[in-house]
């Protein structure tokens, strides 16, 4: 077994950096506190297509999932899963061309002031999106 002498927090970094899924921690309003490269890769074209700066992830996601802020506001517990691997179609015109993909989204409230948001483009997954879980 290989032994990594780096502190546990540092050993987590490659996992965070190379994860094939967007991962972000935001405050309750959506301002990004921590983010991995895949999240930025996915969110910036959406933000640009919406004319947003991209520093507030909930603002960006609300542009493609309009109900998202209300869903979060309606979640009363101090912590827990708010949205779990829901699929949403993204169709936006951007200066660099149209964006057209299926977004898989998970939002967990870890405290009243902190959200963990996981998202990915699942368009190319071999399984078709379940039509019963799609949101218009």
């Amino acid at each position, binding site marked *: 077994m290989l032994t990594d002498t780096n502190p546990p927090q540092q050993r987590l970094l490659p996992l965070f950096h190379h994860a094939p899924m967007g991962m972000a921690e935001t405050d309750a309003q959506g301002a990004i506190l921590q*983010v*991995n490269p*895949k999240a*930025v890769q996915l969110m910036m*074209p959406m933000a640009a297509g919406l004319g947003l*700066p*991209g520093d507030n992830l909930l603002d960006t996601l609300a542009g493609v999932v309009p109900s998202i802020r209300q869903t979060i506001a309606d979640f009363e517990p101090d912590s827990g899963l708010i949205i779990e691997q829901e699929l949403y179609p993204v169709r936006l015109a*951007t200066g*660099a061309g149209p964006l057209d993909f299926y977004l898989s989204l998970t939002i967990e409230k870890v405290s009243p002031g902190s959200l963990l948001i996981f998202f990915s483009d699942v368009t190319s997954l071999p399984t078709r999106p379940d039509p019963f879980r799609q949101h218009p």
Partner: protein
Amino acid sequence: MNQPLTFSDLTVLDWLEVRTAEQLDDAPFGVVRMSRDGKVVAYCKSESHFTGISPDYAVGKYYFSQIAPCANNVMVAAKYAQPELDEELDYILTYVCDPVKVRLRLLKSPGSRYQYFLVNRKHID
């Protein structure tokens, strides 16, 4: 050069083209010089200072897939498919886990052996 080089200088590509990898460190903004197929040829010290990625590690790697995957999308990496490119845009780069607002300039010319990715952190608070 009499005037100090600025990020939006119209002649910045000419300035970059005649600099050695070490001389790129003199630019008042981050510079990544890539081959036309996207491999890092030079990675300036100011960029290295912010990212923690050493020039030795970066050189020879595909920039958008191995060094800066946060810019590997239609807004940035895909633009280099054009034969000629000079575009500035506001963007967010990730440094360790922190989102950092930057101004990018994407540069490529048919007459150059290289393409460039410039990063200005002073433009945006």
